[in-house]
């Protein structure tokens, strides 16, 4: 049952299965069809499902995202692909003022079962207009759910979970993960939206993270372990809702907190997690909480600057050492 496939393939498999299972599911976005997807996620699907269900849109993020909302209102289960998270800014009015608000404004009459996927994150030397990580920022918006699959299993599961959800769900796929490989169990019941997952148990400090930073954190935990520091590593998986319970349980165990996220530091999801721990588990803390985020700069092109700007395993190790002082 378990296969070793890529994150990209896991996504494609999930989309394919959903489309085979449910005629209401379709995929829409720029270059999802003839091109095969900017990151090749939908490669081959046009051939299998035809242009009616794998829809190449013109360049018009606001209208095709809004069209996804309209289709969801009208009984469909659309998957809208936005090529890169930066471009989602063009569709934010639709996402916030419509998708996130319609259920409430209509007094509960109109829910919006829409899935929006987008490639996110830095590290590919694509510069300031293609590299930003907005998932933590989107997590501010009530009415939305924000998923950040890190593993192949989650890439697959979360697409299914999102489609089954009655409300708008945004999936942020870190573009550097598409080629990563991992085990996939397709028959296992998926861990629900809103549940964190502990990838490594530890007693000295808790590292909360998500997406690609999970792997950097795990790497850091190995290094720390060699120094005798035993780090717990928890993948948040979902940034809205956050799994307060899992977070507080870990804090109660380790009493030290490090958060790693790819958003810019100020106003990051790290800040929100710190705020909640402060509110809910203040007296458990033995030291100030720490965070490793992206430096507050539009991401530069040159590799050395870009790498200096984003979280790295070494920075995590350093920060963990500070935390243990």
């Amino acid at each position, binding site marked *: 049952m378990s296969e070793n496939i890529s994150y990209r393939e896991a996504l494609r498999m999930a989309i394919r299965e959903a489309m085979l299972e449910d005629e209401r599911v379709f995929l829409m976005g720029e270059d999802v069809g003839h091109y095969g997807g900017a990151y090749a996620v939908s490669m081959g699907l046009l051939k299998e499902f035809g242009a009616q269900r794998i829809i190449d849109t013109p360049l018009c993020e606001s209208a095709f995202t809004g069209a996804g909302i309209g*289709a969801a209102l009208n009984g469909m289960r659309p998957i809208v692909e936005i090529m890169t998270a930066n471009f989602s800014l063009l569709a934010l009015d639709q996402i916030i003022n419509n998708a996130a608000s319609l259920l409430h404004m209509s007094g509960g009459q109109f829910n919006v079962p829409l899935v929006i996927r987008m490639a996110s994150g830095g590290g590919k030397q694509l510069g300031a207009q293609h590299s930003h990580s907005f998932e933590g920022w989107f997590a501010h918006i009530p009415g939305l759910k924000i998923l950040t699959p890190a593993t192949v299993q989650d890439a697959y599961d979360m697409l299914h979970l999102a489609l089954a959800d009655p409300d708008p769900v945004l999936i942020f796929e870190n573009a550097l993960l598409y080629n990563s490989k991992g085990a996939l169990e397709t028959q296992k019941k998926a861990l629900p939206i809103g549940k964190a997952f502990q990838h490594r148990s530890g007693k000295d400090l808790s590292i909360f993270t998500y997406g690609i930073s999970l792997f950097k954190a795990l790497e850091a935990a190995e290094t720390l372990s060699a120094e005798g520091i035993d780090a717990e590593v928890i993948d948040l998986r979902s940034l809205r809702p956050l799994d307060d319970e899992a977070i507080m349980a870990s804090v109660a165990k380790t009493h030290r907190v490090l958060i790693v996220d790819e958003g810019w530091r100020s106003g990051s999801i790290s800040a929100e997690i710190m705020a909640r721990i402060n509110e809910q588990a203040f007296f458990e803390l033995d030291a100030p909480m720490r965070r490793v985020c992206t430096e507050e700069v539009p991401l530069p092109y040159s590799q050395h600057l870009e790498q200096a700007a984003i979280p790295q395993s070494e920075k995590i190790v350093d920060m963990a050492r500070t935390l243990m002082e």
Partner: protein
Amino acid sequence: MYLDLNRGREFYKKMLLIRRFEERCVELYSHEKIRGFLHLYIGEEAIAVGIMQALGAEDAVLATYREHGHALARGISANKVMAELYGKAEGASRGRGGSMHIFDAKSRFYGGSAIVGANLPLAVGMALSDKMMQRKRVTVCFFGDGAVAEGEFHESINLTALWQLPVLFVCENNLYGMGTALTISHSETNLARKAAAYRVHSQQVDGMDVLKVAQAAEEAVQRIHSAGGPVFLECLSYRFRAHSMYDAELYREKAEVEEWKTKDPLVLLQKRLETMGLWEETNAQGLEDEVSQIVNEAVDFAEKGTLEPIEDLMKFVYTPKEKQ
């Protein structure tokens, strides 16, 4: 379109209902029974009434923040609309929407939208689903002359034309977007011509004449059913009142307003019926009385309505578990 007594009475009554309903709203606003923004449709009644009569129950409607008229013409009860304006739980949107956000699932009325132009992409998606599922339905989307300048207009109309979607675009051109005149909003002020540039079947219609609107709407719906693609109607009209309750109307001349009032859709219909010798039989006073009763009842209903419990504030941020 053929005008007979029945149709004459029906159109007149519907337009009158909107008119009297909104006149009452103004009063209620001054008594602070209604709050927030209140945009009146007075003067433009012929558009909503003319369009809606061409639709079936299966068709869908997307309106603006100036949508009391659309809601009433679509057949949402005055009670529900008024209760919404009062912010009551019995309102169309349980008091969570207010004047700009009337919703009604039963009549496929998808709001009430207060971001100018933002309902246009929704129309694309609604019609796209209907086409995909081979349902014979039309999605009607109302918006103003001002909205035509927004990028979403361009993006949406292109998609409907490209994908040949069953959307009826109804542009209510009342010559102003808030205080900004058409001529300082658009380099091409013939908006039907603008739409035609997307290869969409487009037409200007006298939006003060309910019969002409009704006729154009019926033809449009027919064309959408037969040819499949979208139709754009530019309804030339005028807003008799201020943009909202806060507007000093510095941007237009009183004389212009008065001039347009001579084209009042109610008066126009009356004149037509008079010419045909049907006015007497219309029994306008009887209609006034009926409408007055509906409006009174609506106010009564709203007054007696209840408030959503404060404990339910967070309800409907996400779909409640029991509804999933």
